[in-house]
């Protein structure tokens, strides 16, 4: 029983990371209005940025968050320029293929620049355990959940209270109308894209700390999982996407407890097919965007 | 009295809180040129989309040749013999006029993969049929000159004709035309009117959406008037023309209309 409880806790903390990835993904799809395949690579770059920050400067968690967020933000600008900016009026498959190409580019450049092998991730905080109701909980797990919740709260406040957030929501609802209202649509879209990327980058760092390792090809499956989490919210609904991420994290960890660990990535896919069969439009009505 | 070909019974369509179409009844008889009119945003196109299966009605039933079709999707309804055109022309823009019309013959031919691979009798007779009939329809609609032109490069009015030609390829029992005269100049509109009357004389039942009163009054034999999703009048052009509700919907209350208040 304890074992399953522990797996549940593992699932929740891992699900929290997936939720952060998915929040980023849903933000991007909502604002840009196009589906992206680059998110996995954005996550990977965030993880590597934190890795180098830890290795060269200090093993400071706050520094890691800032670096990974900034690095992914910058990558977000490039992605916007390469994959979206000129394609708002084109048929949808063109920017989509462009993101596939860009994701291939980053993944393979990363293998050339960072080296193709797995590296150990420095641990910015000491490993400790807390006993809660007889379940040993890792301090990192608690930290992950705290960081994810605080970042989501910040995003929520930015989205609902600030001028930026209002512009972002306006743009994700209707680009033409926003332009008529005097919003700089291109810049706002880019910022929305960058915020989503930045969150993905932090998620990448957390994941690397959680697994204590990084790999240039880690992005592929993660990008897929971000998408699958967002499917639950019709790709653009942020809270539903977060819920999807948590559900996938829990399913994966409980699933591997019953089945073999080698089938870990299968669960997310099964989850996707189930959602598509049962509730293809997601649990909420689509708001804005045209993915 | 002729057979009812398309019948709507208490049809409603709600989008969230918006009642786009509310409790509309309609009967179209075989041989009619039936008009659906109303100001912009009256729910005409939504109503057409319900009839042709693009939307499922929230309430109510649609009967086509006596069969309920509310649960059928557009392709099934097309197969039953209903063809339509679209308000914002849905041509295959990158295909020639000839190719556009050929696709219209989809349901009247039977070639499967197997037939195509071996070029057997089914394939040959289908291809022959499609090519000949396509030419006939193109001639009939007066598009022979544009046969090999890319549909997307044609003028607006001609594109509408191509869409009608393509719909005729289905040999439909009823033809729904969604604002066929939009964007046409008066001469084109007049030609279109004559063309629709000619088609009707050949035995096609036709339903037309339009908001141009003059056009529709001289074309149709019966009318349905929608406003804010509800039916406000129905009958022959004469009846509708003098209906106080219609006059109010089009010209507002009081003053100009009718003249008695001025």
């Amino acid at each position: 029983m304890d074992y399953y409880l522990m797996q549940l806790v593992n699932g929740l903390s891992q699900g929290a990371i997936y939720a952060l990835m998915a929040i980023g993904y849903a933000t991007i799809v909502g604002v840009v209005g196009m589906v992206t395949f680059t998110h996995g690579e954005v996550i990977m770059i965030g993880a590597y940025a934190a890795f180098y920050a830890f290795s060269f400067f200090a093993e400071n968690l706050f520094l890691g968050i800032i670096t990974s967020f900034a690095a992914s933000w910058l990558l977000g600008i490039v992605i916007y320029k390469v994959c979206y900016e000129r394609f708002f009026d084109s048929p949808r498959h063109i920017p989509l293929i462009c993101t596939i190409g860009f994701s291939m580019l980053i993944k393979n450049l990363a293998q050339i620049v960072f080296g193709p092998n797995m590296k150990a991730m420095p641990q910015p905080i000491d490993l400790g355990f807390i006993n809660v109701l007889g379940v040993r909980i890792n301090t990192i797990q608690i930290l992950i959940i705290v960081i994810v919740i605080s970042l989501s709260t910040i995003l929520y406040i930015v989205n609902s209270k600030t001028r930026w957030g209002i512009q972002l929501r306006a743009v994700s609802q209707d680009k033409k109308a926003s332009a008529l209202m005097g919003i700089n649509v291109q810049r706002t879209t880019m910022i929305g894209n960058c915020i989503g990327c930045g969150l993905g980058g932090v998620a990448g760092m957390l994941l690397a700390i959680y697994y204590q390792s990084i790999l240039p090809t880690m992005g592929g499956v993660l990008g897929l999982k971000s998408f699958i989490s967002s499917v639950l919210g019709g790709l653009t609904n942020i809270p539903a996407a977060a819920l999807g991420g948590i559900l996938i994290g829990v399913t994966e960890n409980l699933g591997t407890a019953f089945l073999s660990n080698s089938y870990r990535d299968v669960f997310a896919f099964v989850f996707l097919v189930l959602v598509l069969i049962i509730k293809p439009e997601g649990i909420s009505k689509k708001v804005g965007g045209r993915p | 009295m002729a057979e009812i070909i398309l019948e709507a019974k208490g049809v409603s369509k709600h989008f969230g809180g918006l009642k786009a179409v509310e409790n509309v009844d309609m009967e179209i008889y075989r041989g009619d040129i039936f008009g659906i009119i109303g100001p912009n945003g009256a729910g005409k196109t939504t109503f057409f989309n319900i009839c042709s299966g693009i939307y499922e009605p929230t309430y109510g039933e649609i009967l086509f040749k006596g069969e309920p079709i509310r649960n059928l999707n557009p392709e099934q309804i097309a197969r039953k013999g209903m063809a339509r055109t679209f308000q914002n022309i849905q041509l295959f823009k990158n295909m020639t006029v000839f190719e556009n019309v050929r696709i219209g013959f989809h349901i009247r031919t039977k070639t499967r993969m197997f037939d195509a691979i071996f070029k057997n009798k089914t394939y040959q007779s289908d291809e022959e049929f499609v090519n000949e009939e396509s030419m006939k329809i193109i001639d009939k609609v007066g598009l022979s000159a544009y046969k090999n032109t890319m549909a997307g490069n044609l003028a607006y009015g001609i594109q509408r004709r191509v869409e009608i030609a393509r719909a005729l390829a289905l040999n439909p029992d009823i033809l729904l035309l969604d604002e066929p005269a939009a964007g046409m100049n008066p001469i084109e509109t007049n030609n279109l009117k004559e063309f629709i009357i000619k088609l009707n004389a050949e035995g096609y039942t036709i339903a037309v959406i339009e908001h141009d009163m003059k056009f529709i009054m001289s074309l149709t034999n019966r009318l349905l008037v929608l406003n804010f999703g509800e039916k406000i009048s129905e009958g022959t052009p004469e009846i509708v023309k003098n209906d106080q509700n219609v006059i109010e919907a089009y010209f507002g209350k009081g003053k100009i209309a009718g003249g008695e208040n001025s």
Partner: protein
Amino acid sequence: MISNTFENVKKIYKKHAKIINIVLIILLLIIPRLMPNSYLMGIVCRILMYATLAGSLNIINGYSGQFNIGHAGFFLIGAYTEAILATTYGWSFWPAMIIAGIVTSIVGFLVSLPTLRLRGIYLAIVTLGFSEIIRIIALNWTDVTGGPMGIKGIPSPELFGFRISGPVDYYYIFLIVGILFLFITNRILKSRVGRSWISIREDELAAKSLGVEANRAKSANFMYGAFWAGIVGATYAPYYKFIASDMFTLDEGFNILAMVIIGGQGTLIGPFVGASIATLISEVFRFASQYRMVIYAILIIVMMWWRPQGLVGAYDSILAGDDKSLKKRKKSITQKVGDN
């Protein structure tokens, strides 16, 4: 300019189709006599194999406008089906190949099923996920697939008691498969079936309003494309005599996709051009697959920027974008979005 040249070539070809086809086929048949070098023949074999494989993907992406990005998964199923039938059950190559094609097409049907009613992007994700899952299963289901060791010693096919082995012999198998593929596909595309696929690609709503059963046509299209992926997979397995799950990664899928996109979607010749270019690039960067993938990636992006339909793709289709000139497109964005 490219499209003009391509158009002219097409015109000339159409005029003398029969003669050119016969000359081409004779040329293709005697290539091994002119070039008895087995290294070069190996490259030619790869080009032919990938041309058919990319062609099968082009059926799905280029002709019906669906979006499959996990083609490696179907390739894997074809290869494993043949390999398992040939090694474990001792089947001969030819029936095993047909079965591999059929199995793959059934799997294709199942994969396309949950997304038929949804927008294309969901199919993309499902195929991507499927491709990765099927690889994980092949890697872990040791009893059947040999797990990480893969399947070794896949027997060479025999034809009339003559054992086919080595690139020169295989060249003919790949050639026959490729020609059959082109021949059959060409006939289907020029019939009612192919027209319905293209009509869905161009405008699904219009196609439906004309009675084209879009879901059914899309499924059939997907199955047909998957069938040929299975056939190519089945010919691939005995050619390399050994298959393992890491030959069918997502990268392999992107590799195939890159061929279709670079060469051109929506034409029969496009995938052949793409496969030739990609195979030559991969020959040059033989020892650094990352550099190869970087070049593919850049080529894909370049294509999307300036020539979305690919080098020799169907320029007269939605694949080429709405506005044919980029300047016009950029202008229309700034107009719509405003440059405040």
